[in-house]
């Protein structure tokens, strides 16, 4: 079975500081990994995804993540955050199933709070 653990439920940070949101996954098969952002009262927006290839993935809004197979991690980073980055961030693992479809398994989320 696959699962996703987001190690921090809340991360407070000052504006223009760097941030790292941690994500670990468990899977016995090849994985596809994702980070989504959710602003209040909105749906999920894809930040970035790892399907294959380079382990360093760049996404929107200046975010990047690194896939580390040996540590089963996919941590999200941004070198300098803005107030507007305040939101809930979800790590997810994709599971490809027979029958030709996929579903996402999400972590519990990390609330990033950026303070002036």
């Amino acid at each position, binding site marked *: 079975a696959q699962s*996703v653990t987001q190690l921090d439920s809340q991360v407070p940070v000052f504006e223009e500081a760097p941030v790292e949101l941690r994500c670990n996954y468990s899977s016995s098969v090849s994985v596809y990994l994702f980070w989504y952002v959710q602003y209040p009262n*909105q*749906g999920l927006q894809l930040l970035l*995804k790892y399907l294959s290839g380079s382990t360093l993935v760049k996404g929107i809004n200046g975010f990047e993540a690194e896939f580390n197979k040996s540590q089963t991690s996919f941590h999200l980073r941004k070198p300098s955050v803005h107030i507007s980055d305040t939101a809930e961030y*979800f790590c997810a693992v*994709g599971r490809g199933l027979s029958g030709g*479809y*996929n*579903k996402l398994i999400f972590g519990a989320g990390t609330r990033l709070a950026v303070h002036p």
Partner: protein
Amino acid sequence: GAGVSQSPRYKVAKRGQDVALRCDPISGHVSLFWYQQALGQGPEFLTYFQNEAQLDKSGLPSDRFFAERPEGSVSTLKIQRTQQEDSAVYLCASSPSGVQGDYGYTFGSGTRLTVV
């Protein structure tokens, strides 16, 4: 439309009432997913449609939950005899195809259901 549309945005139901939640996916998208997001948690998979066929309903929590997509476009999630534990945000997502490796999900803004 340009995105996934869900209605209503908010629904308050008395315990024991039946509710119907609607999802309009992006036109032409083959795959449609329903997720349930409890307060403070990540989304959890409910069910999956490929066109009009419901290929996976393993995440539906009880037989009070029923989903349909009769013409392969609009989908309705119905909850009978609602209970307080059904209170959550229900998210719909669609993607262009039904093949493995297609993770081009677009999420709607969700319907927030509160059972009182």
